[in-house]
């Protein structure tokens, strides 16, 4: 095992659970709503080499996954739907994962780093935060764009810290969170769930699935279509506009596009990425998982 310089604390297996819980608490104090732990070698069964924790940190033993809620409940309830377009989330889980990594290095003397989650080639992330969350017992995949749903909170956002420290891993959830019971009933009556109804793949939407005996037996997600809607503004929108601009010969026409509201919103979305990651939340808006928690006074 590789360790950082300085006094390295030997972890007594008997104390592992106590130490693990203390590390989780550090993550929660730093802003996470939930923190889970996955064993680094648990990834081997699901992803190829190049996408496993040890590919980024040799000797990796554990992945600490920090989860936070996205927009506040008030934002979900806002009568102005465009508010959610630019109040995506505040990256608290990222801050939390960095704090956790620093804590592990400084307190326990093991190497720890924030896991790389942003795509560096195509749409594949170096390390999948969705898989990390599943392996850390924080949720399961759903019909709605494969989004990981936590049984208590529904949609959450994830970041992780990879460490060479051995910690007590959490168990994966034994039951799938999706479909919820009310969705199963709706499917039996109408042949679709709330998320499928709001964004049906065969009617210009992104989602489809079949359910038997309360379990998902097949699911379809049109990722390309979804990404153009969920990320209508931002990097992709800007790239598309630059492509269009290079194909326009007329200077006035180019000017019209450069100073259009659409162009400005793309730039704003890039510049204020923290506030404006995605612009479509409709499948999650109708999802019953964790919905009761969004009902306040």
């Amino acid at each position, binding site marked *: 095992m590789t360790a950082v310089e300085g006094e390295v604390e030997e972890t007594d297996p008997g104390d592992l659970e106590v130490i693990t819980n203390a590390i989780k608490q550090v993550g929660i104090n730093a*802003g996470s709503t939930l923190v889970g732990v996955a064993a680094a070698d648990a990834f081997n069964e699901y992803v190829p080499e190049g996408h496993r924790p040890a590919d980024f940190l040799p000797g990796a033993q554990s992945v600490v996954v920090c989860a936070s*809620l996205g*927009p*506040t*409940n*008030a*934002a979900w*309830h*806002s*009568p*102005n739907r*465009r*508010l959610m377009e*630019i*109040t995506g989330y*505040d990256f*608290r889980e990222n801050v939390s994962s960095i704090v956790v990594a620093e804590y592990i290095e400084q307190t326990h003397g093991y190497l720890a780093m924030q896991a790389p989650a942003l795509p560096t080639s195509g749409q594949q992330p170096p390390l999948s935060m969705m898989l990390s969350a599943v392996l850390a017992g924080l949720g399961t995949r759903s019909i709605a764009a494969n989004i990981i749903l936590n049984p208590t909170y529904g949609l959450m956002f994830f970041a992780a810290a990879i460490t060479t420290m051995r910690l007590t891993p959490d168990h994966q959830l034994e039951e799938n969170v999706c479909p919820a019971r009310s969705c199963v009933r709706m499917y039996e009556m109408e042949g679709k769930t709330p998320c499928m109804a709001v964004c049906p793949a065969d009617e210009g939407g992104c989602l489809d699935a079949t359910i038997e005996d309360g379990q998902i037996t097949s699911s379809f997600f049109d990722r390309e279509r979804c990404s153009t809607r969920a990320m209508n503004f931002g990097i992709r929108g800007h790239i598309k506009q630059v492509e269009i*601009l*290079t194909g326009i010969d007329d*200077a006035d026409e*180019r*000017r019209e596009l*450069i*100073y259009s*509201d659409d*162009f*400005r*919103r793309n*730039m*704003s979305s*890039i*510049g*204020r990425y*923290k*506030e*404006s990651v995605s612009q479509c939340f409709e499948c999650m808006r109708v999802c019953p998982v964790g919905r009761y928690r969004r009902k*306040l*006074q």
Partner: protein
Amino acid sequence: MEELDWVSIKSGLLDMARKRGAEVARIGDPALLEDAEPGLRPSELLTNVKSMIVLGGAAPRAAEWQSTRVEVMETVGTADRMTALGSAVARHIEETYGYYAMNVPTSTDQDDKAFLDFKAAAIAAGAGTASLAGPVLDPDHGFLYLTVILTTMPLPADGPLEQPACPAPQCIDMWEEQGTTPCMAVCPIDDGGCLGGEIDQGLVIKRRYDAERCRDRVYHYWTPGYQAALERALDEPDSRKRKMILYGSFFTRTMWSITYSGVSQGQCFECVRACPVGSKQRALQ
């Protein structure tokens, strides 16, 4: 259900905000903004909104104001801390008290319109008063970045300040002697600047402001600069000149300013630099 002690809750929330960096923390009545034009009313963002928590802080540090390099202020101005603080307070309200709360986005809506008139919200809460220069000024701290949290919690409102922070006594004296104020003198609207106005009996009775010109200067880099440079590059028929524009310092800085928008949006602070309100906070050893 047990009636909550709103005065204590208000005090706790504002203390929490101050501990986390707010210089000014006040409560405003959102009803005062309900006669704003459609699209800028608090109730259009949050149904049954009862209170506006207005926080001001994250002003440039005294040393930054004193720096001999203008580039310092061009690249360190930040509203990010206030946005993060607003989000934390909103989440605290929802998780602790079970009332809806949202930090109003500082980004703009369609057609570059704000979601809420932040200045009006600050004035309604007494987190400052309007100024000739434009920004809301707190009597003690002067210019501050603002964030507004809307909530359904019925917190007791503080209400607007009774005394305007602008014009300051020094500015009234200057007006009486020279017919101008520090901010108008540094950026005169009739001489290529953005500000004009009149003071009568110690009160601002008329204000002129060239918003378009100011925007060009304050946001010299950032999105407007990027748009201008990109247009120029695409209009340039000579590929070598085009390359010079695209790889030039100006274009690069616009990109930095966009990617670091939280810390590098504004590039002109001259009217506030000359403003005496809050200047005590900027004078250190």
